[in-house]
């Protein structure tokens, strides 16, 4: 009873609480509807395709689809001895179809990944197959090459049967699942990917460190100089920021070449002999130098925006209380800039870890990163599922850093220019 009397009513006679909730809900929907078009657009063209990558990276139906009859016949085969005649017959029928469709090359590539030596015996089979008589395929196929009589090769085909595989992820870590189903490492000379992962981390880390060491003093200078000078100097930071990445990479290619200006300068000051000019491009040095310069503005801008808010009187206060300039800097100024340091370092690290263009142009063989490997598999080997697997591994790493960034800095605090 008392509850009802206390309730405040709007002019329409609806309790205020209900009315307010209704209005708030309406506002919520209104706000959401404004965001919805972009969100929907991104989900369809971006978020969903990234999910599709996940599917592709474990999808292994290519071989299964190419040899449907073979796998059906193999279901009954225990894999101990050579498969029975039905399997050979089914394989012959499947492979004949592939030869007619001219897609047998793909099968050869795929099976060769599983076990070396498939390519040549499939080619030989293709040639000899034209003269095959009906029936007794087992003997005819085995007569083509002795490897066809080797049970190992048939087991390799059977291993490709499942629709889902995590083999690509293992491959990206230089591991594989051997015949017995144990996960082991590939031989030492074939471990290429782990080196790339480590190098990507190493380059991203050191580029971040170099950027920080270079950006801190100039951000400080920009923040403490009078406006009319700092605006002028700011152009030095902003012009590279707005200039095409390819233009900046091109200028490094000119500077770092063996007859380039940097080498000329080193010869002129006597650091190196004229006939012994060091190779500064197409290796890790090139990647480091170019990436540091290209990513430097991304470190300067967040640092600058934080330093700008620090009152100069704080340092004066520190000094007047007896601290030397160094102590005042270390105890007062530096701690206040930590948010900017965090923002800048995480941003540069995130950008550096996925860098593609610059390493591809100035990195050579020893300076390329994991992105280049992804692009290589997308464009050259066409092993898209492997590219997807590596891409997602990289993405996971980036998202972890992004999450940390979001916790520490907040994405809505990113400042541009």
């Amino acid at each position: 009873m008392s509850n009802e009397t206390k309730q405040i009513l709007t002019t329409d006679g609806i309790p205020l609480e209900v009315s307010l909730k209704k209005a708030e809900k309406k506002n919520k929907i209104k706000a959401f509807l404004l965001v919805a078009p972009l969100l929907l657009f991104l989900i369809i063209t971006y978020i969903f395709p990234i999910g599709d990558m996940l599917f592709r990276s474990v999808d292994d139906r290519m071989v299964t689809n190419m040899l449907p009859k073979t796998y059906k016949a193999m279901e009954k085969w225990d894999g101990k001895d050579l498969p029975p005649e039905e399997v050979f017959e089914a394989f012959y029928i499947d492979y004949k179809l592939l030869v007619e469709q001219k897609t047998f090359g793909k099968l050869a590539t795929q099976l060769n990944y599983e076990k070396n030596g498939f390519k040549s015996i499939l080619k030989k089979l293709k040639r000899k197959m034209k003269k095959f008589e009906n029936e007794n395929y087992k003997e005819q196929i085995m007569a083509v090459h002795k490897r066809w009589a080797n049970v190992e090769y048939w087991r390799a085909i059977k291993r490709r049967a499942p629709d889902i595989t995590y083999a690509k992820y293992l491959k990206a870590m230089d591991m594989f699942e051997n015949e017995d189903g144990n996960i082991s490492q590939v031989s030492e000379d074939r471990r290429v990917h782990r080196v790339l992962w480590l190098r990507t981390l190493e380059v991203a880390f050191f580029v971040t460190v170099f950027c920080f060491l270079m950006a801190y003093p100039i951000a400080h200078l920009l923040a403490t100089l009078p406006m009319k000078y700092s605006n002028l100097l700011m152009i030095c930071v902003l012009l590279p920021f707005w200039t095409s990445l390819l233009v900046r990479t091109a200028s490094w290619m000119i500077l770092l070449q063996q007859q380039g200006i940097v080498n000329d300068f080193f010869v002129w000051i006597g650091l190196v002999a004229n006939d012994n000019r060091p190779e500064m491009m197409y290796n890790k040095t090139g990647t480091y130098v170019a990436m540091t310069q290209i990513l430097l503005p991304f470190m300067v801008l967040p640092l600058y925006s934080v330093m700008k808010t620090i009152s100069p009187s704080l340092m004066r206060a520190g000094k007047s209380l007896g601290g030397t300039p160094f102590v005042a800097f270390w105890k007062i100024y530096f701690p206040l800039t930590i948010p900017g340091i965090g923002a800048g370092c995480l941003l540069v690290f995130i950008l550096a870890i996925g860098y593609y263009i610059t390493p591809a142009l100035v990195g050579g063989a020893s300076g390329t990163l994991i992105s280049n490997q992804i692009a290589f598999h997308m464009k050259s080997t066409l092993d898209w599922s492997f590219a997807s697997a590596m891409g997602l591994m990289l993405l996971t790493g980036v998202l972890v850093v992004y999450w940390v960034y979001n916790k520490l800095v907040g994405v809505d605090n990113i400042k541009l220019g």
Partner: protein
Amino acid sequence: MALPKYTEARYRIWHYFYIFICTCVFFFLIAPLFVIFPLSFNAEEFLVFSDGMKRLDPDAFSLRWYKDMIYGTKNPWGLATKNSFIIAIFATLGSVILGTVAALGLSSRHMPYKGIIMATLISPMIVPLIISGVAIFFFMAKAGLAATHTGIILAHIVLGTPFVVITVTATLSGFDHSVTRAASSLGSDPVNTFMKITLPLILPGVISGGLFAFVTSFDEVVVVLFLAGLENTTIPIQMWTGLREQLSPTILAVATCLIVLSTLILVTAELLRRRSERIRGISR
């Protein structure tokens, strides 16, 4: 930053050392861009400063690479420039419209799940381009939009919107909402209010976001590499191919033009930023 007279000698030395370091870093940042300028006027085919250039001999300089850029036989730059502008303009329009509308929603204090939605909308800026490229390529191939202008424009809208969202939300953060309420109370409908009141006030933010989107699209190469066919070649693709195969002075001529373009964009962006800060009442 003149030092006070009473500064001790060691701090004086330290101070000059600090200025020296800063000068070096500024030099490192800006100098590489200026190498391209003179070399693009080189009369010879080599990408080094010839003896004639060092003596400032007029014969050592020429416009032949600019002529080659414009009139050269089987020259890809004309088509590439046309494509680049078409793609960048449409991508910018798309990004600006979608991004501004979304930013309006995001800056409303009623917006539910603000954090996670913002993080999603910004993600194309954070996710490495190579991954975006692979994902968008899969989508466009399925949708039958690979090697079409439409496909590339859609991809660039994805990459451009985060910049618009960021700049416009930043502009809206200092926005006085009572003016839109005043407009509504005077009988204006929401669309009219937006066009007449909100948009003019946030225009600097919208334009600078648009500039970012434009530059992102105009300079984008990784995603286009996956999507473009021969017909869709763009300036960055041509630069990329040129840099991979053979570094020719013609590329430097193009690069010089791009530097001039980016200088213009920088000046516009700076003027807009100052205007926007003045409007938001941030005194500097």
